[in-house]
């Protein structure tokens, strides 16, 4: 079962803030997911990324009904995510990655996508929560 630790939540928030600072209009969470889409699609294929994002979105929707209108386009881009919404989607996506390929590779992926934002806190599994 996917778990999102406080460290992952914190990382997701920082990535979203970073992306929001770059383009506030596009929405930080959507941009963060898109930033992860590129390396993940290259590595796991478009279908691979889309399936992971679908699961992350489903998990996020379970805890936040305001995300019910959000959906994933065929190309793996999130649609309907506005403003600061969607931190849970990014966190669950990172959480899924950590579940499947481990903290070390997840950290590496994040570092590749955001060379200035990666943090060793992603493998801090203390205080994990569902």
């Amino acid at each position, binding site marked *: 079962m996917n778990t999102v630790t406080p460290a992952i939540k914190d990382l997701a928030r920082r990535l979203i803030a970073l992306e929001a600072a770059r383009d506030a209009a596009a929405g930080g969470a959507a941009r963060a997911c898109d930033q992860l889409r590129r390396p993940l*699609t290259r590595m796991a*294929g478009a279908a*691979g990324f889309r399936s992971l994002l679908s699961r992350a979105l489903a998990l996020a929707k379970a805890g936040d009904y305001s995300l019910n209108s959000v959906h994933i386009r065929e190309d793996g881009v999130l649609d309907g995510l506005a403003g600061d919404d969607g931190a849970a989607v990014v966190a669950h996506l990172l959480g899924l990655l950590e579940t499947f*390929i481990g903290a070390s590779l997840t950290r590496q*992926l994040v570092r590749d996508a955001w060379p200035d934002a990666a943090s060793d806190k992603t493998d801090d599994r203390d205080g994990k929560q569902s």
Partner: protein
Amino acid sequence: MSAADRVTIRKLPTGVPGLDEIMGGGLPEFSFNIIAGAPGGGKTTLAHQIGFAIATPERPALYFTVLGEPAIKMLRYQQQFQFFDPAKVNTAVRFINLSQVALEQDLEAVLAEIVKEVEAVGPSVVIVDSFRTVVRKAAGGTGEAELQGFIQRLALNLTSWEATTFLIGEYTEGEIRDNPVFTVADGLFWLSQHVERNSIVRKLQIMKLRGQESVPGLYTFRITEGGLQTFPRTYGLTSGTEKGKGQNRLSTGIAKFDELLHGGIPEGDSLLMGGPSGAGQSILATQFIAEGLKRGEPGIVAIFEELTDQYVRRAASFGFDFETPQKAGTLEIIYLRPLDLSVDEMVHEVVNSVKKLGAKRLVIDSLVGFEMALAPGFRTDFRESLYRMIGALTRLGVTIISTVEIEEDFTSLGLSNFAISFLSDDIVRLRYVSINGQLRRMLMVVKMRGGPHSIDMNEYRVTDKGIVIGEPLRGYRGLTSGIPGPWHPEVRDAEAADRKE
């Protein structure tokens, strides 16, 4: 063309223990290879292991996944192996998924995508996993000529870009013939699993390797947390000669036994000690190891019928401390997992231990247990395998005592039944004899290749201090039968008179 004029094909280390030796020194650089076999054979693991061994950030490995195992799951499983270095992912080892291209487009698009990536980074290694799915997908709308053209252009491109390539595919042996993939390939690695009763043995065969001489044959391999480990059949046999054989004598720790051997076991010899169950051959072998430890000679005991702790406890019951030398690194007790072992694996284990410890003494207790620990298919080649193993070990200069349990038949020495005596320099036989209503024990030195030995048949006892050898049994006839009778006095006196003359 002289040797100096020929192009030198560099051999790349594979990172797979034993494989370089099988391949004749390593993987030919820029070769175009197939790793084939049935599902679960270890193909993907082998490819990863080689990729991680060779790749550097400057000359990375490109791992293309195509319609096979999902990449995320592959990474999840492969990172369990010790060779998987997360720091190399997406730097030295880069994963690229081509599933969508393969699904939605044709072979040309797949080729173009691979070439584009290769030209962008100049990789040292390219892996396509699973290539079979590319071919299968293409087979529907592609003719054989087109498929062959695709494979040739792929090989041409990857070789021109100085990449060593591996195509991974699930194939059966029947598919090799007339298959363009196999025709183009420089190297063909076949991985298989053989079910032998309840055991499964993994085997590797290099069916083809252009440009260099590999060692032909089927090789057992094991997949452990370290990845694949192959066990070359020539392990330990290709280097050096028998060291210092017979120059010194090694004491067995039993003075009277040393006397029977005319000074102990010649160094570097292989001594076979046969006897029935309970005769004490294991105890005698234990004393041989203990004596070596006392003299500062590291030793190794390979056991099959009991666990290490049990063996140490049993040694302790005879007053030998085997715990301290184990901790000090002068004694290693090897207990090998029974039932699916290959002789090559055993050789590998023991030879490595002998080298590591600088061992002077080795006990194999027992050959019967060793044979039983083998997967059934290897038991038929047991004698040939044993010959190789003893050869490899004696080359290292280690002195070996192998015990063998013999079923008493009261008519012969029983050694020919096991038919391995030709493997041994020296043979010692223990047996029960029925004398005066008592079951007593008798020891005789049957053969010593290096020189003379006592021809006496001595009684011995198993005590709480180990084996104690007594006096020669005199006045009996038919001792070797196990049911001797007294010499007739007239005959005995006549024979004594003959000897005097």
